[in-house]
């Protein structure tokens, strides 16, 4: 069966002034799979994520998401296109002036014509899906723990039933138990999305979580993908940097 790809980078180069962050990067992300992008700090992982979202534009090369070349989209089309994405930020990035309920309801209020009753039902269903109990709904993000905020962030990311779910270092700064909980949540969320194939892209430093969670791993070094393979093949990689990365992480 032919592989299908949700995201394609073709000779993507991005420079900031004299500094080249992404250097002719070429790889494709499989549809309906979890792909983790690993790499050292400053390797260009976050820059790559911003290219997927169309926040950064390539200096040269091409980024195609869901078959659409992003450079063909104007500003307003790009905004509309972004409703295909769900994003979970490193520190959740919840709107601190809104309750947790309103945070999850926000994308629905902005982009759908659902009634208040329908939004309430959908939000409660999403909150149940990510394991948030009743008493967290009407609290502010500052009144709940980091792990709970991650759950709210995930629920907000899922609010518009995205085709692509992006995670920016989702477990950084969390304790091992909460990290495990977030990993399970990502895996469960991904499985729930299988009726509509959801592609998940995770930016991470956490090698243990990456090996546990991912279907594919891409390793980014000096602005290029030096390895892109299934988890089993990644573990057997001959690349000395990856070997060292795996050794140090274990």
């Amino acid at each position, binding site marked *: 069966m032919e592989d299908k790809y949700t995201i394609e980078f073709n000779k993507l180069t991005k420079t900031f002034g004299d500094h080249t962050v992404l250097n002719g990067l070429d790889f494709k992300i499989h549809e309906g799979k979890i792909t983790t992008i690993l790499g050292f700090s400053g390797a260009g992982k976050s820059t790559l994520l911003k290219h997927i*979202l169309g*926040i950064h534009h390539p200096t040269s090369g091409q980024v195609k998401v869901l078959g659409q070349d992003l450079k063909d989209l104007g500003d307003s089309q*790009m*905004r*509309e*296109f*972004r*409703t295909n*994405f769900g*994003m979970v*930020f*490193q*520190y959740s*990035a*919840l*709107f*601190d002036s809104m309750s947790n309920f309103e945070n999850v309801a*926000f*994308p629905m209020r*902005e*982009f759908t014509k659902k009634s208040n009753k329908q939004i309430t039902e959908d939000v409660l269903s999403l909150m149940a899906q990510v394991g948030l109990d009743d008493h967290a709904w009407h609290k502010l993000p500052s009144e709940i723990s980091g792990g709970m905020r991650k759950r709210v962030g995930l629920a907000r990311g899922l609010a518009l039933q995205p085709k692509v779910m*992006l995670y920016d270092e989702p477990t950084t700064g969390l304790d091992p138990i909460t990290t495990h909980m977030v990993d399970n949540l990502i895996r469960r969320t991904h499985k729930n999305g299988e009726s509509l194939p959801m592609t998940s892209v995770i930016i991470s430093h956490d090698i243990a979580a990456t090996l546990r969670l991912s279907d594919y791993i891409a390793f980014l070094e000096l602005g290029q993908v030096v390895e892109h393979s299934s988890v089993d093949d990644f573990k057997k990689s001959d690349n000395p940097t990856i070997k060292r990365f795996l050794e140090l992480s274990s």
Partner: protein
Amino acid sequence: MINVIKKGISWVGSSVLDTTPALGRLSLYTFSFFFWLVRPPFRRKLFFEQMVFMGNKSLFIVLLTASFSGMVFAYQIYLGFTAFSVDSFVGPIVAIAVCKELAPVFTGLVVAGRCGAAMAAQIGTMKVTEQVDALECMGVNSTQFLAVPRIFGIVITMPMLCGIFMMVGNAGSYLIGVKVLGIDPAMYFSKLSEFMNFSMIFEGLIKSAVFGFLIGIIGTFQGFAVTGGAEGVGKGTNMAVVWGMIMVLISDFFLTAILAKIL
């Protein structure tokens, strides 16, 4: 001596080079505000929330400033005018000064300190905690969502606060002039109606709306320009207050010159 001149020229040159890109960004930002102002969705709830927030935050200090500046100005005018037995002119002199200058400028300075700072701090904090990125990732334009309600809100709220300043300032003047210093109330009102006219009030209200716009643009712009963490938010807030106040004072001169020709 030549070195001093060289250093001076170099300082002027580098200042111009530093300031020009910032002015360019501010101009583009102002353009994008107008661009998003007229495009749906129109978030009325956010706009009213901002109006209530700004009005509520500034009302007490505006009342305090208005009452004492009206009273002290009446007192000073009385001390000078009573020597020439023209103390009945205290009412109109204070009223003209309050309506044309003191109310818009003092309200502008107070609001720049309170609301300009709040705007920069709120948006700056959202920027450093990735909340602005979250909006953009969802496809919501951050200028339209965060800046438009705040700037439009302050443009509407400022004339209201200025109007309150005018009333309270003149009430303070009446209290001191008539009740404390003994100016004949009939003379006070007679001179007031003789010299005051609606265009003076209108001038103050127009000025205050323009000041509100400048404070809003600078406050939100500084918020979006924040980089780094808490220190960056502090710097942005400080810049918003300083530049907001400077712009109120500078634009007051030009507005006075322009409105004097129009009204």
